Protein backbone atom coordinates (compact mmCIF):
# COMPACT_ATOMS: atom_id res chain seq x y z
CA UNK A 1 0.00 0.00 0.00
CA UNK A 2 1.22 3.49 -0.71
CA UNK A 3 -0.50 4.82 2.37
CA UNK A 4 -3.06 6.58 0.24
CA UNK A 5 -6.16 5.27 1.90
CA UNK A 6 -8.90 7.51 0.61
CA UNK A 7 -11.28 6.69 3.45
CA UNK A 8 -8.68 7.47 6.07
CA UNK A 9 -7.79 10.70 4.34
CA UNK A 10 -11.41 11.73 4.08
CA UNK A 11 -11.80 11.10 7.78
CA UNK A 12 -8.75 13.26 8.42
CA UNK A 13 -10.17 16.02 6.30
CA UNK A 14 -13.53 15.91 8.02
CA UNK A 15 -11.85 15.96 11.38
CA UNK A 16 -9.81 18.99 10.41
CA UNK A 17 -12.87 20.79 9.04
CA UNK A 18 -14.84 20.00 12.19
CA UNK A 19 -11.99 21.37 14.27
CA UNK A 20 -11.84 24.57 12.22
CA UNK A 21 -15.58 25.15 12.51
CA UNK A 22 -15.68 24.24 16.15
CA UNK A 23 -12.89 26.65 16.94
CA UNK A 24 -14.62 29.38 15.02
CA UNK A 25 -11.67 29.71 12.68
CA UNK A 26 -14.02 29.12 9.77
CA UNK A 27 -17.73 29.76 9.48
CA UNK A 28 -20.52 28.66 7.15
CA UNK A 29 -19.35 30.95 4.38
CA UNK A 30 -16.51 28.51 3.83
CA UNK A 31 -19.09 25.77 3.36
CA UNK A 32 -20.82 27.97 0.82
CA UNK A 33 -17.56 28.20 -1.11
CA UNK A 34 -17.23 24.43 -1.04
CA UNK A 35 -20.74 24.11 -2.41
CA UNK A 36 -19.77 26.33 -5.30
CA UNK A 37 -16.97 23.98 -6.27
CA UNK A 38 -17.96 21.43 -8.87
CA UNK A 39 -16.72 19.84 -12.06
CA UNK A 40 -17.02 23.17 -13.85
CA UNK A 41 -14.86 24.84 -11.27
CA UNK A 42 -12.94 22.06 -9.54
CA UNK A 43 -10.35 24.27 -7.85
CA UNK A 44 -12.61 27.09 -6.90
CA UNK A 45 -11.98 27.03 -3.17
CA UNK A 46 -8.21 26.89 -3.38
CA UNK A 47 -8.22 29.61 -6.04
CA UNK A 48 -10.24 31.94 -3.87
CA UNK A 49 -8.14 31.13 -0.82
CA UNK A 50 -4.92 31.80 -2.72
CA UNK A 51 -6.20 35.16 -3.87
CA UNK A 52 -7.20 35.87 -0.29
CA UNK A 53 -3.75 35.17 1.12
CA UNK A 54 -2.06 37.13 -1.63
CA UNK A 55 -4.19 40.11 -0.68
CA UNK A 56 -4.14 39.62 3.08
CA UNK A 57 -0.36 39.37 3.24
CA UNK A 58 -0.12 42.67 1.45
CA UNK A 59 -2.65 44.19 3.82
CA UNK A 60 -0.69 42.94 6.82
CA UNK A 61 2.54 44.38 5.49
CA UNK A 62 0.86 47.71 4.89
CA UNK A 63 -0.74 47.73 8.31
CA UNK A 64 2.60 46.99 9.91
CA UNK A 65 4.32 49.82 8.10
CA UNK A 66 1.45 52.23 8.72
CA UNK A 67 1.62 51.55 12.44
CA UNK A 68 5.37 51.86 12.73
CA UNK A 69 5.36 55.33 11.30
CA UNK A 70 6.05 58.34 13.44
CA UNK A 71 3.07 59.57 15.37
CA UNK A 72 2.67 62.70 13.27
CA UNK A 73 2.47 60.66 10.09
CA UNK A 74 0.21 57.97 11.47
CA UNK A 75 -3.03 57.85 9.56
CA UNK A 76 -5.81 55.99 11.29
CA UNK A 77 -7.99 56.65 8.28
CA UNK A 78 -5.69 54.66 6.07
CA UNK A 79 -5.57 51.92 8.65
CA UNK A 80 -9.35 51.89 8.69
CA UNK A 81 -9.51 51.55 4.92
CA UNK A 82 -7.13 48.61 4.98
CA UNK A 83 -9.11 46.97 7.71
CA UNK A 84 -12.38 47.40 5.86
CA UNK A 85 -10.88 45.52 2.97
CA UNK A 86 -9.50 42.88 5.27
CA UNK A 87 -12.85 42.45 6.97
CA UNK A 88 -14.65 42.16 3.66
CA UNK A 89 -12.32 39.56 2.20
CA UNK A 90 -12.14 37.52 5.37
CA UNK A 91 -15.87 37.53 5.60
CA UNK A 92 -16.19 36.41 1.99
CA UNK A 93 -14.10 33.31 2.53
CA UNK A 94 -15.49 32.45 5.93
CA UNK A 95 -12.38 33.34 7.91
CA UNK A 96 -14.39 34.19 10.98
CA UNK A 97 -11.71 34.53 13.59
CA UNK A 98 -9.47 36.69 11.45
CA UNK A 99 -12.46 38.82 10.58
CA UNK A 100 -13.43 39.32 14.22
CA UNK A 101 -9.92 40.39 15.13
CA UNK A 102 -9.99 42.91 12.30
CA UNK A 103 -13.23 44.31 13.65
CA UNK A 104 -11.67 44.80 17.09
CA UNK A 105 -8.61 46.27 15.40
CA UNK A 106 -10.81 48.71 13.54
CA UNK A 107 -12.44 49.79 16.80
CA UNK A 108 -9.01 50.59 18.23
CA UNK A 109 -8.18 52.51 15.09
CA UNK A 110 -11.46 54.43 15.24
CA UNK A 111 -10.40 55.49 18.73
CA UNK A 112 -6.98 56.59 17.50
CA UNK A 113 -5.53 54.06 19.91
CA UNK A 114 -2.09 53.25 18.59
CA UNK A 115 -1.17 50.82 21.34
CA UNK A 116 -4.42 48.98 20.91
CA UNK A 117 -3.79 48.82 17.19
CA UNK A 118 -0.33 47.38 17.65
CA UNK A 119 -1.66 44.74 19.96
CA UNK A 120 -4.44 43.88 17.53
CA UNK A 121 -1.95 43.63 14.72
CA UNK A 122 0.09 41.08 16.67
CA UNK A 123 -2.97 38.96 17.30
CA UNK A 124 -4.04 39.35 13.69
CA UNK A 125 -0.68 38.25 12.34
CA UNK A 126 -0.78 35.24 14.63
CA UNK A 127 -4.32 34.20 13.67
CA UNK A 128 -3.62 34.78 10.04
CA UNK A 129 -0.69 32.43 10.29
CA UNK A 130 -2.80 29.74 11.92
CA UNK A 131 -5.45 30.09 9.24
CA UNK A 132 -2.90 29.81 6.50
CA UNK A 133 -1.33 26.69 7.97
CA UNK A 134 -4.65 24.99 8.54
CA UNK A 135 -6.00 25.73 5.08
CA UNK A 136 -2.73 24.60 3.57
CA UNK A 137 -3.10 21.35 5.49
CA UNK A 138 -6.69 21.02 4.28
CA UNK A 139 -5.74 21.43 0.65
CA UNK A 140 -2.88 18.98 1.03
CA UNK A 141 -5.23 16.30 2.32
CA UNK A 142 -7.60 17.11 -0.52
CA UNK A 143 -4.80 16.61 -3.02
CA UNK A 144 -3.92 13.30 -1.48
CA UNK A 145 -7.53 12.17 -1.68
CA UNK A 146 -7.51 12.97 -5.38
CA UNK A 147 -4.31 11.03 -5.80
CA UNK A 148 -5.70 8.09 -3.90
CA UNK A 149 -8.75 8.06 -6.10
CA UNK A 150 -6.57 8.10 -9.19
CA UNK A 151 -4.50 5.12 -8.18
CA UNK A 152 -5.83 1.83 -9.44
CA UNK A 153 -4.87 -1.49 -8.00
CA UNK A 154 -5.49 -4.69 -9.97
CA UNK A 155 -7.81 -6.93 -8.02
CA UNK A 156 -6.51 -10.49 -7.81
CA UNK A 157 -9.11 -13.15 -7.18
Amino acid at each position, binding site marked *: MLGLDADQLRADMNRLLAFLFHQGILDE*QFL*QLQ*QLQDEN*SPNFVSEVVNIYFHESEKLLRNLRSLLTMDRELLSFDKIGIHLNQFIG*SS*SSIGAQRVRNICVAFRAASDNNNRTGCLRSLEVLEHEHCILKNKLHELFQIEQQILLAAAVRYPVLN
Partner: protein
Amino acid sequence: MGMAADSEFHVLAVDDSIIDRKVIERLLKTSSYQVTTVDSGSKALEFLGLREDDGINPNTPSVSPNNHREVEVNLVITDYCMPGMTDYGLLKKIKESSSLKNIPVVIMSSENVPSRISRCLEEGAEEFLLKPVKLSDLKKLRPHMLRTKIKSHNGKQEPEELGMPDEKIGFPSPKQEEQQQQQPQSKNNKRKAMEEDVSPERTRPRLNGITTMV
Protein backbone atom coordinates in the same frame (compact mmCIF):
# COMPACT_ATOMS: atom_id res chain seq x y z
CA MET B 1 -30.11 22.48 -11.64
CA GLY B 2 -29.70 25.03 -14.38
CA MET B 3 -32.86 25.98 -16.13
CA ALA B 4 -32.50 26.63 -19.80
CA ALA B 5 -34.23 29.98 -19.52
CA ASP B 6 -31.65 31.33 -17.08
CA SER B 7 -28.77 31.29 -19.52
CA GLU B 8 -30.63 34.01 -21.39
CA PHE B 9 -30.00 36.32 -18.48
CA HIS B 10 -26.86 38.37 -18.35
CA VAL B 11 -25.77 39.89 -15.08
CA LEU B 12 -23.21 42.63 -14.69
CA ALA B 13 -21.44 42.35 -11.34
CA VAL B 14 -19.54 45.33 -9.98
CA ASP B 15 -17.18 45.07 -7.04
CA ASP B 16 -13.75 46.48 -6.31
CA SER B 17 -12.79 43.44 -4.24
CA ILE B 18 -11.22 40.77 -6.39
CA ILE B 19 -12.32 38.06 -4.00
CA ASP B 20 -15.89 39.20 -4.00
CA ARG B 21 -15.85 39.39 -7.77
CA LYS B 22 -14.68 35.84 -7.98
CA VAL B 23 -17.27 34.62 -5.52
CA ILE B 24 -20.19 36.50 -7.04
CA GLU B 25 -19.16 35.32 -10.48
CA ARG B 26 -19.23 31.72 -9.34
CA LEU B 27 -22.52 32.21 -7.52
CA LEU B 28 -24.09 33.65 -10.65
CA LYS B 29 -22.65 31.04 -12.99
CA THR B 30 -23.79 28.27 -10.68
CA SER B 31 -27.24 29.78 -10.94
CA SER B 32 -26.87 29.54 -14.72
CA TYR B 33 -26.59 33.21 -15.51
CA GLN B 34 -24.13 34.73 -17.90
CA VAL B 35 -21.79 36.98 -15.99
CA THR B 36 -19.56 39.92 -16.66
CA THR B 37 -17.57 41.34 -13.77
CA VAL B 38 -16.00 44.76 -13.55
CA ASP B 39 -14.11 46.39 -10.74
CA SER B 40 -15.51 49.88 -10.75
CA GLY B 41 -18.63 51.91 -11.29
CA SER B 42 -17.12 53.78 -14.21
CA LYS B 43 -16.23 50.52 -15.96
CA ALA B 44 -19.75 49.35 -15.34
CA LEU B 45 -21.14 52.44 -17.04
CA GLU B 46 -18.73 51.95 -19.90
CA PHE B 47 -19.90 48.41 -20.34
CA LEU B 48 -23.48 49.54 -20.26
CA GLY B 49 -22.70 51.96 -23.04
CA LEU B 50 -23.11 55.16 -21.14
CA ARG B 51 -19.73 56.51 -22.09
CA GLU B 52 -18.55 57.58 -25.52
CA ASP B 53 -15.07 56.19 -25.38
CA ASP B 54 -14.25 52.62 -26.25
CA GLY B 55 -12.24 51.69 -23.19
CA ILE B 56 -11.05 48.13 -23.36
CA ASN B 57 -12.37 46.26 -20.41
CA PRO B 58 -10.39 43.13 -19.62
CA ASN B 59 -13.34 41.66 -17.82
CA THR B 60 -15.58 41.51 -20.85
CA PRO B 61 -14.50 38.57 -22.95
CA SER B 62 -16.23 39.06 -26.22
CA VAL B 63 -17.93 42.41 -26.13
CA SER B 64 -16.73 45.54 -27.80
CA PRO B 65 -18.97 48.37 -26.75
CA ASN B 66 -19.31 50.96 -29.42
CA ASN B 67 -21.66 53.84 -29.06
CA HIS B 68 -24.54 51.56 -28.27
CA ARG B 69 -24.68 48.80 -25.75
CA GLU B 70 -24.41 45.63 -27.80
CA VAL B 71 -24.89 43.18 -25.01
CA GLU B 72 -28.16 43.18 -23.16
CA VAL B 73 -27.72 43.33 -19.42
CA ASN B 74 -30.65 42.02 -17.44
CA LEU B 75 -29.46 42.97 -14.00
CA VAL B 76 -26.67 44.93 -12.36
CA ILE B 77 -25.45 43.73 -8.98
CA THR B 78 -23.05 46.11 -7.32
CA ASP B 79 -21.19 46.67 -4.11
CA TYR B 80 -22.53 49.62 -2.23
CA CYS B 81 -19.29 51.38 -1.55
CA MET B 82 -16.44 51.56 -3.99
CA PRO B 83 -13.63 54.04 -4.38
CA GLY B 84 -13.97 56.38 -7.30
CA MET B 85 -17.69 56.75 -7.22
CA THR B 86 -19.88 58.00 -4.43
CA ASP B 87 -21.95 55.46 -2.61
CA TYR B 88 -25.18 55.59 -4.58
CA GLY B 89 -23.32 56.81 -7.63
CA LEU B 90 -23.70 53.91 -9.97
CA LEU B 91 -27.27 53.27 -8.94
CA LYS B 92 -28.19 56.89 -9.48
CA LYS B 93 -26.50 57.13 -12.85
CA ILE B 94 -28.29 54.05 -14.07
CA LYS B 95 -31.68 55.21 -12.86
CA GLU B 96 -31.16 58.69 -14.30
CA SER B 97 -30.31 57.36 -17.72
CA SER B 98 -33.19 57.01 -20.13
CA SER B 99 -31.62 54.00 -21.79
CA LEU B 100 -30.62 52.18 -18.62
CA LYS B 101 -33.19 53.06 -16.01
CA ASN B 102 -35.20 49.88 -16.54
CA ILE B 103 -32.30 47.64 -15.73
CA PRO B 104 -32.83 46.25 -12.23
CA VAL B 105 -30.05 47.11 -9.82
CA VAL B 106 -29.22 45.11 -6.72
CA ILE B 107 -26.96 46.49 -4.03
CA MET B 108 -24.61 44.41 -1.90
CA SER B 109 -23.07 45.58 1.30
CA SER B 110 -21.15 44.04 4.15
CA GLU B 111 -22.83 46.33 6.65
CA ASN B 112 -26.39 46.11 7.83
CA VAL B 113 -27.33 49.77 8.10
CA PRO B 114 -31.09 50.28 7.89
CA SER B 115 -30.86 53.87 6.70
CA ARG B 116 -28.51 52.79 3.96
CA ILE B 117 -30.85 50.01 2.94
CA SER B 118 -33.91 52.21 2.73
CA ARG B 119 -32.00 54.93 0.91
CA CYS B 120 -30.88 52.43 -1.71
CA LEU B 121 -34.38 51.17 -2.19
CA GLU B 122 -35.66 54.74 -2.45
CA GLU B 123 -33.09 55.45 -5.11
CA GLY B 124 -34.48 52.59 -7.15
CA ALA B 125 -32.57 49.51 -6.12
CA GLU B 126 -34.62 46.34 -6.32
CA GLU B 127 -32.91 44.45 -3.56
CA PHE B 128 -30.31 44.94 -0.92
CA LEU B 129 -28.19 41.90 -0.14
CA LEU B 130 -25.94 41.53 2.85
CA LYS B 131 -22.51 40.19 2.18
CA PRO B 132 -21.31 37.57 2.07
CA VAL B 133 -23.91 36.79 -0.55
CA LYS B 134 -25.23 33.25 -0.57
CA LEU B 135 -26.71 31.08 -3.28
CA SER B 136 -30.11 31.38 -1.66
CA ASP B 137 -29.92 35.17 -1.98
CA LEU B 138 -29.67 34.85 -5.73
CA LYS B 139 -33.15 33.40 -5.92
CA LYS B 140 -34.36 36.91 -5.25
CA LEU B 141 -32.87 38.11 -8.50
CA ARG B 142 -34.92 36.14 -10.97
CA PRO B 143 -38.24 37.95 -10.61
CA HIS B 144 -36.57 41.25 -11.36
CA MET B 145 -34.95 39.94 -14.49
CA LEU B 146 -38.12 38.23 -15.60
CA ARG B 147 -40.02 41.45 -15.24
CA THR B 148 -37.77 43.25 -17.68
CA LYS B 149 -37.94 40.36 -20.11
CA ILE B 150 -41.70 40.50 -19.98
CA LYS B 151 -41.60 44.19 -20.77
CA SER B 152 -39.45 43.71 -23.82
CA HIS B 153 -40.75 40.39 -25.06
CA ASN B 154 -44.41 40.79 -24.25
CA GLY B 155 -45.47 37.65 -22.54
CA LYS B 156 -43.55 34.89 -24.25
CA GLN B 157 -42.12 34.04 -20.84
CA GLU B 158 -42.27 30.66 -19.19
CA PRO B 159 -41.08 31.32 -15.69
CA GLU B 160 -40.36 28.30 -13.56
CA GLU B 161 -40.15 29.84 -10.17
CA LEU B 162 -40.47 33.27 -8.75
CA GLY B 163 -39.00 34.21 -5.44
CA MET B 164 -40.41 36.81 -3.16
CA PRO B 165 -38.56 39.88 -2.04
CA ASP B 166 -39.62 39.32 1.51
CA GLU B 167 -36.77 40.99 3.31
CA LYS B 168 -37.08 44.48 1.97
CA ILE B 169 -37.66 47.37 4.24
CA GLY B 170 -39.08 49.90 1.84
CA PHE B 171 -40.72 49.58 -1.53
CA PRO B 172 -40.07 51.76 -4.52
CA SER B 173 -43.05 52.77 -6.60
CA PRO B 174 -44.72 49.70 -8.08
CA LYS B 175 -44.04 48.73 -11.61
CA GLN B 176 -47.29 48.63 -13.45
CA GLU B 177 -46.37 46.82 -16.59
CA GLU B 178 -46.61 43.22 -15.44
CA GLN B 179 -48.74 40.89 -17.47
CA GLN B 180 -50.25 37.52 -16.79
CA GLN B 181 -47.67 34.77 -16.50
CA GLN B 182 -48.18 31.66 -18.55
CA GLN B 183 -47.70 28.12 -17.32
CA PRO B 184 -47.13 28.14 -13.62
CA GLN B 185 -44.58 25.49 -12.88
CA SER B 186 -42.46 24.23 -10.03
CA LYS B 187 -42.84 25.31 -6.47
CA ASN B 188 -40.41 27.42 -4.59
CA ASN B 189 -40.14 25.96 -1.15
CA LYS B 190 -39.30 29.36 0.31
CA ARG B 191 -42.58 30.76 -0.80
CA LYS B 192 -45.46 31.09 1.58
CA ALA B 193 -48.36 29.05 0.34
CA MET B 194 -50.44 31.62 -1.47
CA GLU B 195 -51.79 30.81 -4.83
CA GLU B 196 -53.93 33.65 -6.02
CA ASP B 197 -53.62 36.01 -3.15
CA VAL B 198 -52.91 39.30 -4.74
CA SER B 199 -53.74 42.18 -2.50
CA PRO B 200 -54.29 45.56 -4.11
CA GLU B 201 -53.14 47.29 -0.92
CA ARG B 202 -49.58 46.12 -1.34
CA THR B 203 -47.30 48.68 -2.84
CA ARG B 204 -45.33 45.96 -4.54
CA PRO B 205 -47.12 43.13 -6.29
CA ARG B 206 -46.42 39.76 -4.81
CA LEU B 207 -45.04 37.43 -7.42
CA ASN B 208 -45.95 33.79 -7.29
CA GLY B 209 -46.04 31.01 -9.74
CA ILE B 210 -49.45 31.74 -11.15
CA THR B 211 -50.47 35.31 -11.47
CA THR B 212 -49.06 38.71 -11.04
CA MET B 213 -50.97 41.81 -10.41
CA VAL B 214 -51.24 44.36 -13.08
